[in-house]
């Protein structure tokens, strides 16, 4: 090996070191500890005083009706949010994808809720959703009355609470997906669009046969990221309903949080976190498989 190669290797490691150290300290090491704790009876107050319990945490979690319910709530939330948010974001992106000033301004408007802190929005929407209480009535109930719908207890009626949170979440997250789609749209080859126009394709045909195939990877990326973000549901239900009514909005992350800080059962909390990690990793792998097919 020549000295130049040896030297450039050393330089390479020097450049890699900051990222590797940060990833090691803040990702790899905590992950490893959590994985180890998940096989022990670790107590939050004395985590080093634990002993090996094999897969008993996993067995306990998987047979717990509360875990199944939190998993079901989270999955249902993702099923409501992902298709709607992605589709609406795509349509909005088509609409605002113009260079003129008003459209750029509109893009910023749709992006505002993404920037505002979620707890602030959660408090605002709790007020918007307020049910009729004596003389008090939330703005959403006033609005639906115009449509002839009787006022609802949006956040405290068991079948309505999760859809109400999903609706608010779609509104909040829409801007991010829209921006990614706008970036994707600007990458669609102009020649293809012009060629299809000359061939007589109308706007709808151009979207279906040119834009969507060209944006395949963007669409898969948006759907995957939206699914992962939806699976991480926590702040909205924790602040708006505390997981109620009847545990109908208790999410997987809330369960991890409560196992860690309320019952202080660190081993069990880590087991749930590991199961959650597996779920997210599986989604990411699926995305990689689908999007690489396109490139080959």
């Amino acid at each position, binding site marked *: 090996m020549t000295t130049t190669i040896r030297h450039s290797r050393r330089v390479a490691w020097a450049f890699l070191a900051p990222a590797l150290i940060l990833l090691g300290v803040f990702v790899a090491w905590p992950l490893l500890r959590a994985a180890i704790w998940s096989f022990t009876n670790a107590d939050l107050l004395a985590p080093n005083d634990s002993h090996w319990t094999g897969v008993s945490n996993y067995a306990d979690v998987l047979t717990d009706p509360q875990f199944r319910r939190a998993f079901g709530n989270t999955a249902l939330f993702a099923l409501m949010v992902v298709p709607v948010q992605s589709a609406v974001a795509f349509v909005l992106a088509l609409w605002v994808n113009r260079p003129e000033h008003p459209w750029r301004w509109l893009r910023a408007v749709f992006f505002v809720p993404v920037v505002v802190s979620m707890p602030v929005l959660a408090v605002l929407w709790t007020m918007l959703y307020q049910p009729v209480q004596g003389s008090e009535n939330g703005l959403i109930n006033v609005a639906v009355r115009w449509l002839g719908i009787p006022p609802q207890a949006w956040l405290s009626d068991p079948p309505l609470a999760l859809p109400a949170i999903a609706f608010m979440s779609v509104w909040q997250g829409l801007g991010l997906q829209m921006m990614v789609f706008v970036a994707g749209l600007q990458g669609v080859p102009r020649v293809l669009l012009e060629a299809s126009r000359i061939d007589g394709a109308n706007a709808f045909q151009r979207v279906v046969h040119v834009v969507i195939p060209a944006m395949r990877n963007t669409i898969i990326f948006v759907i995957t990221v939206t699914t992962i973000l939806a699976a991480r549901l926590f702040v909205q239900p924790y602040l708006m309903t505390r997981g109620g*009514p009847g545990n109908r909005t208790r999410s997987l992350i809330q369960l991890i949080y409560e196992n860690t800080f309320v019952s202080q059962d660190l081993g069990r909390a880590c087991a749930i976190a590991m199961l959650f990690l597996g779920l997210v990793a599986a989604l990411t792998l699926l995305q990689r498989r689908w999007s690489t097919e396109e490139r080959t």
Partner: protein
Amino acid sequence: MARLVDAKLLYPLNAWFTSAELEDFLPTVLEQGTIDGRLYALGAFESAVVLYFNRDVFNAAGVTTPATGQSWSWPEFLSACAKVRHQGIEPVALHMNESADEWFTYAFSPLVWSGEGRLISTDGKRVSGVLASPENVRTLTAWQQLFRLEFAATDPVDPDPFGHGRSAMDWSGHWMARPHVTDLGDKLGVLPLPRMGDKSFAPCGSWCWGIARQSKHPELAALWLQWVTDSEHGIVPIVRANGAIPARRSAFAFFAEYAHAPYALFRDQLERSARPRPRTPYYATLTQRFAAALRDIARGADVERRLQEAEREIQRVIDRRN
């Protein structure tokens, strides 16, 4: 605190305080800090929850109140609510929008106790058959009536409807005494919380301090604890600042307001009818799941089924550590 004692993280304090000193503390402070006969924690201040009322509204609605220090039975309380409701005023603020889970267990456990129920078994290890007992189902069904009859809001937005003149009564703590005295003046009245059975119970409890087992100098920590719980040097400046109730009898001499209502009732309750919340290592889970059940019950959930669900959730956590 019970959790810290269970994890063997606290020193007993008995060696650092004489029995004469301890007798000066309110009985609730000692009871809360004591586990298996040993004192592990002491505080400088206490708390109270009472039923504040607006005399003008009561007079207009024809509501009469029991003698000083006496409480309403539940049917008497509901009938007072009905009379006020008839006048078109919201009868009582229960602060169901409180974001802290602790409010629910703290403010409404006295009803469970006065209905001859318990939250957890005496050994602090069993909720099955205790939390969803027939007594508690009866008590919380009666409590649910407040919401069914629209006497109290399940989802209020205003944090102080009573102070804003929008409700006739306020089921609230000592921390509202000063604002209410300022807002209502002579119109302010105060009663102990209504009772389900023969005896009225009051909530109590506040922040407290203990000494960590890892401490290399527990005697210095104890010296600090003696200073912070000293009537003149610790309690008086703290209570002047935070408006809580002094934890020691000798400290009341520094606060003239405790000679009359509403403050006199706070002390009276702590001396006679207050009961501390259960001291169990599983308290954090117990209070959180019980609070979730109370929220659902207020919104019309089936009382027995909801309490049984809370029982199962809490018992599962207890059984994992036994």
